[in-house]
């Protein structure tokens, strides 16, 4: 088990190095980072002076190592617009993004797992068809349209819920539904197919044959064995949720990292863009490492590899 954990940890570190390189490259895509960072009306001399001062004339490997050193210390430079360290701006907004993504995931798990199980147990009944249709629609519905339609119905027409900003629990409802629906749909379908597969296994028949009642068979014997693919998809869906927060936060004016990065891209505030992309990607890598550790608990076979 120790070697498994160490191997996964090493892979995570490698990936983080790759992530830092891609983030570094964002600024160097056009070949002239100085032109990107300075306002469009900067003179040629300004650009040249800035280029020397920032070390953009050094070989790219030197520049990358310098960037990496800064990144490891959490230093991505100052925001061009706010005059604060870019990292500070991002970290300040992380709790809002985590709250939203967490609410989305919680909603998805609370709805999807029971819905998937009931669908599988009551296969080919009205309940099953209903949940399948809802899941199919949920997977096909673009986040931004869902958000706008929810605002149209619940804020504009019914005036029940606020359409923007962060505050009490009411503010969280529409953004969490918007962000969580796709994940809900995906986990529902996966839980259903996973449960259907497990419920056909011999050990389930054995459990039933020896007189275990239906509830524990479904919720204990079957669910634990069906949960490995579900945990895998949760790891992947965390990425979907963090990415989806970019759109959802923009629609609902939710003061998180996603909205900050969209604004930074439009303001050409690249230090903030780099810090935000780096932090969100690193968060995803770390969370997936935790998910990998969760396997060793769910699937003891992994411990002996």
């Amino acid at each position, binding site marked *: 088990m120790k070697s498994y954990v160490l191997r996964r940890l090493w892979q995570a570190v490698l990936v983080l190095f790759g992530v830092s390189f891609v983030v570094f490259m964002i600024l160097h895509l056009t070949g002239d980072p100085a032109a990107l960072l300075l306002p469009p009306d900067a003179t040629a001399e300004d650009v040249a002076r800035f280029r020397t001062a920032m070390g953009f004339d050094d070989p790219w490997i030197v520049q990358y190592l310098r960037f990496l050193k800064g990144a490891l210390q959490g230093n991505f430079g100052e925001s061009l617009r706010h005059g604060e360290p870019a990292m500070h701006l991002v970290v300040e907004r992380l709790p809002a993004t985590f709250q939203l993504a967490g609410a989305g995931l919680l909603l998805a798990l609370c709805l999807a797992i029971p819905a998937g199980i009931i669908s599988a147990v009551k296969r080919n009944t009205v309940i099953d068809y209903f949940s399948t249709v809802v899941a199919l629609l949920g997977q096909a519905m673009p986040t931004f349209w869902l958000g706008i339609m929810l605002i149209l119905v619940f804020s504009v027409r019914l005036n029940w819920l606020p359409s923007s900003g962060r505050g009490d629990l009411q503010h969280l409802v529409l953004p969490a539904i918007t962000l969580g629906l796709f994940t809900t749909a995906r986990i529902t379908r996966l839980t259903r197919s996973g449960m259907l597969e497990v419920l056909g296994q011999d050990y389930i028949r054995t459990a039933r044959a020896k007189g275990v009642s239906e509830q524990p068979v479904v919720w204990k014997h079957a669910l634990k064995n069906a949960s490995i693919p579900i945990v895998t998809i949760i790891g992947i869906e965390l990425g979907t949720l963090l990415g989806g927060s970019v759109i959802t936060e923009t629609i609902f004016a939710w003061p998180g990292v996603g909205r900050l990065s969209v604004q930074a891209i439009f303001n050409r505030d690249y230090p903030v863009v780099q810090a935000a992309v780096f932090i*969100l990607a690193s968060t995803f890598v770390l969370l997936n490492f935790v998910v990998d550790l969760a396997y060793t608990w769910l699937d003891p076979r992994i411990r002996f590899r």
Partner: protein
Amino acid sequence: MAPPNGTTAVALPVLPTAEERYWLTTLKRLARRRTALFGLAVVVIVLLAATFAPWLTPFDPLEQDINQRLKEPGWQNAAGQMHPLGTDHLGRDILARVIFGSRIALVVGLSAVLISGVLGMMIGLVAGYFGGKVDDFFMRLADIQLAFPFILLAIAVIGVLGANLRNIIIVIGVSSWVIYARVVRGEVLSIRERDFVQAAIALGSRDGRILVRHVLPNAFTPWLVVATLDMARVIVIESALSFLGLGVQPPTPTWGGMLADGRVYLSTAWWLATFPGLAILVTVLGINLLGDGLRDTLDPRLNV
């Protein structure tokens, strides 16, 4: 005319080749699934709408008419022409813009899927066939690619490079290869051990020939399923980029761009944001159902 060598010519019926038979059977089995058939119908309708867009509506999607601003669905103008889905804030016909918007969605969808599909297929073939260090390298590269929230990376890169059709296709295409590579690699790992590949190796075939002649045709089926399902994802990404203002620029009609316009008029004119969103929903649903059907017919064990 007498055939040469004095043999008699016999008219043989043209029998379908094994490959033709395979696809024919597949098509028949696909047609038996009602949901897949529905998906196929939607996809065909969207393709036809994009192709014949100018003949489907009397309105020009770019033509503004300030006197006909924000008219509700079913509105008739003075000339007696009806706007079935109403008009937008510049008096443009929404139905015309929805129909023309399908062109951008499909062009980006098809081109980006082609780029990422070919790229992923090549990486998957090489990684799976050679294994070892090569495989490790590409799989770590895949992990790195997947670590980024896709939409965030896309808007950051397009923000730097500039939002136009070419950049959007390239950015989505180049960064979507992972799923193809993983699926093709998985297939190659099992195909590599099969007798016909081992026989080809024993006969001294070169690697390139084995990959192209023996491995690739067998990895094509799962690739096709993935490509179909991924097309839906790409169309959503394209709309999201347009919605954020980083897609194909106005006045060209895009579904995402129409939604962004409609958002401003949400309290007065609900139809602006509703119809382009429905167009995305139905198109994506259709492609997903077709993809699910293809998977269940061709390769039920495929896990995508």
